[in-house]
């Protein structure tokens, strides 16, 4: 029927310098797990330049040679449909890697081979990793590897990245292929093969330096790819002899699929029909009646577990660093003047503390998000909720980061990494700071208790809705205003991968890895801000709170906030500390309103140093955080974060002098919509770059100022 022809073999250039190896495969084939297993701790995660698509790479030295591995974004084909595919294609064309590792899902060979055939056109040596091979054996399917190897003229290695199977064999195959320099066969059906060769020869005869590999160009011309054909036409490379051979791309793709199915028929042995466990699970999880309730429960569980499990440990880490490590660092640095002690303790150790205290939260969060992603449920969630999100121009997957934002904006921003399009990622990122995180709640609790008495729950709920409502309006307006966001660039086509149980070891590896990259990247921005805020807050040193630089500055600009309803400088002075952490608003107000003795009291009240008893207290607190976690789990259905920890009557009374109920409302709205905390900002910079971060901050300044003003001024009309 079909003729497979062995094509030229040629020896690639001798190996020198760093050897570039690109991992390419469809989405959901376990590519990241595989590169992760091979590279281990050498793996670095960043973004591709200028976009929010995750880039994983690793440099390894093996036998004295430098290998640089790059994980290219998942692609179904190399006719770029999504940004990810464009990145992958451009990398293969421009960077010309020395070798491609094509990661293939053994269970879905038909789908994967489409990309494999396209990759062979790049004239780059290739190794195929038959991933999820263990699952295929369980499914009682067999692949005639030897035959496939002959057909494609590439090394083929059964692997499982999640279970670390076949890694050595893969390394060996990579060396072998690099040494021999064998190129993969380029397969076509017979009728196309002739035309392909004719075009390839004619292009080759022109002897002109193409921007593409010759076979790639010939195949694109054959299928009448608009972009390549136009480029070649502009260079006068296409004469009538060539254009006569052009097909349309429907004919081309159909021929590709016929070829693939004939290959599969000849190499695949299926003993029983494919695993239908996934279908059974789907019939429950995607059920017309059960689907949505189960989704809500699942979201609730993830949300609760993430925040309830981590909260006691976040508190403990904060305590450990500020009250123990901080205290004894200062003790050891007794010879320094007080001002430096204060700087080290409050700004530097405090800054380190605020990064480190995020570990438990980020760690647990990443663990759950990895489970959702790797098990295959994440795409189902998107399927279930898609219609809702589609109505504001987003895809279903955006829902999950937004919900997480109500717990903490930081992991929510990280969760946008998993979204499928650049547009979704960016818009979700811009929305998240408007989701009222749990650190803003103590501020609402204090103010509503002071001013709204029995209406306080209603007011708090209203604030949550207000944030979400403004986020929705914002997304609609942004899509109208920014042309590149207007068109739905990637129509929602979602693959629902088979359900998998990811091994715990793999999940932990993934989590540890992501936490490490958080520390590395968030640290410096946070430290810088902490020092800045400390300087304005504590200098001139030993001045009463009313005369610090922060107070002086706030007094100078207080008039700006008159329309918003809080022209008192004390309220204005909380805004800058709120950028360190939202709950710092309360501490700052306390310091200012309750006079000098409140100010930096940790340093001024002489501390008792009893190393043994302090150490044992740390251990007790550590133990208690486990107990608290356990009790949080037992009280699963109470919203623990809603309970006030302590009532501060004296502070509430002082607030009543400073605010009216209306200006208090306006203040809470301002805190809700104001610039997010520094940890969120530093993660935002990491994900979206400095330009979008500045855009977001400016936008939030405008929104918070105008919405609060609107509320205050409207309220005044009714009250008078």
């Amino acid at each position, binding site marked *: 029927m079909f003729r497979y022809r062995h094509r030229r073999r040629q020896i690639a250039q001798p190996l020198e310098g760093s050897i570039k190896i690109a991992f390419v495969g469809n989405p959901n084939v376990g590519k990241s797990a595989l590169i992760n297993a091979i590279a281990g701790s050498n793996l670095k995660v960043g973004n591709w330049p200028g976009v929010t698509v995750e880039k994983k790479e690793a440099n390894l030295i093996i036998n004295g040679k430098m290998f640089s591995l790059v994980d290219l974004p998942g692609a179904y084909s190399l*006719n770029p449909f999504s940004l990810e595919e464009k990145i992958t294609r451009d990398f293969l064309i421009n960077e010309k890697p020395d070798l491609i590792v094509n990661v293939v899902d053994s269970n879905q060979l038909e789908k994967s081979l489409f990309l494999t055939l396209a990759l062979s056109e790049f004239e780059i040596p290739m190794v195929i990793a038959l991933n999820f091979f263990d699952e295929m054996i369980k499914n009682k399917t067999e692949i005639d590897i030897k035959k496939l190897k002959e057909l494609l003229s590439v090394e083929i290695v059964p692997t499982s990245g999640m279970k670390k199977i076949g890694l050595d064999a893969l390394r060996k195959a990579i060396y072998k292929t690099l040494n021999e320099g064998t190129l993969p066969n380029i397969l076509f059906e017979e009728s196309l093969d002739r035309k392909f060769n004719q075009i390839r020869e004619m292009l080759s005869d022109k002897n002109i330096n193409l921007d593409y590999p010759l076979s790639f160009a010939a195949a694109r011309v054959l299928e009448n790819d608009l972009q390549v054909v136009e480029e070649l036409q502009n260079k006068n490379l296409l004469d009538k002899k060539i254009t006569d051979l052009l097909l349309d791309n429907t004919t081309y793709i159909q021929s590709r699929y016929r070829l693939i199915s004939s290959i599969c028929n000849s190499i695949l042995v299926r003993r029983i029909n494919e695993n239908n466990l996934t279908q059974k699970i789907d019939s429950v999880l*995607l059920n017309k009646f059960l689907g949505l309730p189960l989704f809500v429960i699942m979201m609730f569980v993830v949300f609760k577990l993430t925040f309830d499990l981590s909260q006691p440990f976040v508190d403990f880490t904060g305590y450990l660093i500020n009250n123990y490590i901080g205290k004894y660092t200062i003790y050891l640095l007794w010879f320094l003047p007080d001002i430096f002690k204060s700087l080290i303790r409050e700004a530097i150790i405090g800054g380190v503390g605020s990064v480190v205290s995020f570990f438990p939260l980020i760690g647990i969060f990443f663990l759950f998000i990895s489970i959702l992603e790797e098990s295959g449920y994440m795409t189902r969630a998107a399927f279930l909720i898609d219609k809702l999100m589609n109505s504001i121009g987003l895809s279903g997957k955006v829902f999950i980061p937004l919900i997480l934002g109500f717990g903490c904006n930081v992991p929510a921003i990280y969760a946008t990494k998993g979204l499928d399009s650049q547009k979704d990622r960016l818009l979700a990122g811009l929305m998240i700071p408007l989701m009222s995180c749990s650190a803003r709640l103590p501020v609402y609790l204090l103010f509503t208790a002071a001013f709204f008495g029995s209406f306080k729950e209603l007011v708090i709920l209203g604030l949550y809705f207000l944030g979400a409502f403004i986020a929705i309006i914002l997304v609609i307006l942004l899509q109208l205003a920014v042309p590149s966001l207007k068109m739905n660039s990637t129509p929602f086509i*979602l693959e629902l991968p088979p359900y998998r149980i990811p091994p715990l070891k793999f999940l932990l590896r993934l989590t540890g890895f992501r936490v490490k990259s958080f520390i590395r990247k968030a640290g410096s921005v946070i430290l810088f801000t902490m020092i800045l805020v400390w300087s304005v807050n504590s200098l001139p040193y030993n001045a009463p709170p009313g005369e610090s630089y922060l107070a002086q500055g706030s007094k100078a600009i207080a008039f700006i906030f008159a329309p918003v309803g809080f022209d008192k400088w004390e309220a204005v002075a909380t805004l800058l500390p709120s950028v360190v952490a939202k709950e710092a608003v309360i501490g700052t107000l306390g310091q200012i309103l309750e006079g000098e003795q409140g100010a930096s009291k940790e340093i001024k009240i002489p501390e008792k140093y009893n190393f043994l008893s302090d150490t044992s207290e740390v251990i007790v607190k550590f133990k208690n955080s486990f107990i608290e976690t356990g009790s949080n789990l037992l009280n699963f259905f109470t919203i623990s974060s809603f309970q006030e920890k302590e009532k501060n009557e004296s502070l509430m009374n002082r607030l009543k002098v400073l605010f009216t109920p209306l200006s208090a409302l306006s203040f809470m709205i301002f805190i809700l919509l104001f610039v997010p905390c520094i940890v969120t900002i530093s993660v935002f910079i990491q994900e979206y770059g400095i330009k979008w971060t500045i855009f977001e901050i400016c936008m939030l300044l405008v929104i918070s100022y105008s919405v609060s003003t609107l509320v205050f001024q409207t309220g005044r009309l009714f009250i008078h």
Partner: protein
Amino acid sequence: MVLNKALKNKKYRVIDIKLDEKLARRLQELGIVKGGKVHMVRRAPLGDPIHICVNGQNISLRDSVCSGIVIEEDK
């Protein structure tokens, strides 16, 4: 008829794809090709998108895309 009118749990054959070239191409790359078989699995609980199965692969498509995929019942 078009794919949005497909009935749950029935098999169909694709006869035409009337969508812009880029989108049509992507669908074909996923195996939704003229003459190919499509199994309509279910609709999402909110009515959109549609869950179909092609070559053993589960895919979710929005109504707006499905309205461009012309099908007939597969006998």
